[in-house]
């Protein structure tokens, strides 16, 4: 042990350096804490929160009951029971639509998979409940979440084929045509 190291040992030099660090943190008090229920952090723009079912501006549901979200979901959250629209044999809709949000991992694959953009991810995240069964949502609850989170609705185009949106989604990683 050199003399310098010995001096440092008997004067607790390293410990004093550490205590200086803690003291400087106390004197320059800038807490990183956010007092959560009182102040909430700003969510990022692409935040993936609670899932919701959307409507067109005339109030009709967007969902066409194609089951693609059910197929895309890795956690088997979604269950769709599809049916014909009464009186319109060419159109289908989801008669029942269930989401078991206890299993959802918020990957957004269902939203990507939807050909008619009927699913959306809201910015809600405060969904703690005392009873787990409250997280098993049915169609009305999902539509209600969509209604309160997306007040601006899309206009329904009469002759739009549903698969147009699907292909747009599927090829959106390709470079877009200029202009």
């Amino acid at each position: 042990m050199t003399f310098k190291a010995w001096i440092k040992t008997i004067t607790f030099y390293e410990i004093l350096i550490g205590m200086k660090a803690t003291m400087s943190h106390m004197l320059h008090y800038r807490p990183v804490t956010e007092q959560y229920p009182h102040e909430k952090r700003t969510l990022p723009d692409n935040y993936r929160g609670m899932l919701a079912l959307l409507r067109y501006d005339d109030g009709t549901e967007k969902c066409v009951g194609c089951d693609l979200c059910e197929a895309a979901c890795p956690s088997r959250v979604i269950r769709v029971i599809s049916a014909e629209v009464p009186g319109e044999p060419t159109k289908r809709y989801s008669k029942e639509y269930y989401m078991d949000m206890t299993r959802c991992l918020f990957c957004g694959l269902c939203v990507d998979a939807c050909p008619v953009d009927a699913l959306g991810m809201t910015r809600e995240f405060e969904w703690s409940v005392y009873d787990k069964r409250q997280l098993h949502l049915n169609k009305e609850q999902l539509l209600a979440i969509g209604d309160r989170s997306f007040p601006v609705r899309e206009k329904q185009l009469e002759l739009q084929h549903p698969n147009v949106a699907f292909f747009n989604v599927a090829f959106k990683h390709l470079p877009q045509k200029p202009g």
Partner: protein
Amino acid sequence: MTELSLRLAVTFAQILAEMSIVMITVATLTYFERKVLGWMQDRMGPMEVGPYGLLQPVADGIKLFFKEDIVPAGANKAMFALAPMLTMVVAMIGFAVIPFGPNITLDIYGITIKPFVVADINIGVLYILAIASIGAYGIILGGWASNSKYSLLGGLRAAAQVISYELNVGLALVGVLMLAGTLSLVQITEAQSGGFWHWFIWGGRPDGFFPIHTQIFAFVVFIISAVAETNRIPFDLPEAESELVAGFFTEYSGMRFAFFVSAEYANMTLVSCVASALFLGGWNAPYPGTIFEYIGLEQLAWVEHIVWFAAKVYFFLFLFIWIRATLPRLRYDQLMRFGWKVMLPIALANIIITSFTLYFFPR
């Protein structure tokens, strides 16, 4: 008969006042520690209960009071109940000999009392050492009676650690006792009056400033050993959270847990009081006399003395929290090696050197 009852009444009033002061200090410390620790770690500490979390100790007390009292299966019930009581009582009665204020006497109906010390006994330091050793029994009993491997390991570690570091505490005090020539804490503190250069940390040599009797090495040994003795970080092996859940009080809950925690904080306060009384002049101000005397208010000098004592004690308490915020825990062999191979030789050498300097340069 009336004199006896009067004496009893006065003593009980003193004990009550002293205990409430200690309990208030303990409650303050639980808040203060969490707050300071939070500030040092860029957090806020308790903020919810009351403004800036000021009512957090009250909320904690109420919560612990109403919590379920669990006795583990296979525990030795009598010992399990005895351990927290022993620890708490021992931590409390150590304060009986601590002089909080100046050594003045009051005459109440013919009997003479000292208002700022409950019992001015002539073996005060010895009494504190003895009481602190009994406190270890509570920890060891609690660890053994819980019928849990973590508690048992914590108790074993506490036993080994307390034996190693009690020795250093006792030996570190010997130099001061030689300088003061007495074991009474009141007289030791009085011997340090008249400015900070009379404090025993510098040796208290009135002629010439060169501190030949300096006890600063004993002081450092005492502080480090006191941290170890009160099971604080970085010597908190008996209650190492990351290794032993909570050490010797793993199985305790409710008020019994509160007793252990209060006893720990009370022990912290006790060693802070002893350190400030023995090394930093206790109630004496760092300048000769008091400001109240200079401006002609001799009756109020005791206020200044008490404020200085409290300032010193709180400095040590802050130091404990500061060390806790800074240092990680020692390994067990490091703890033992440090206690026996570093602290003990320094304390012994301090005794020898102090006795030589005292022989050649008597005070």
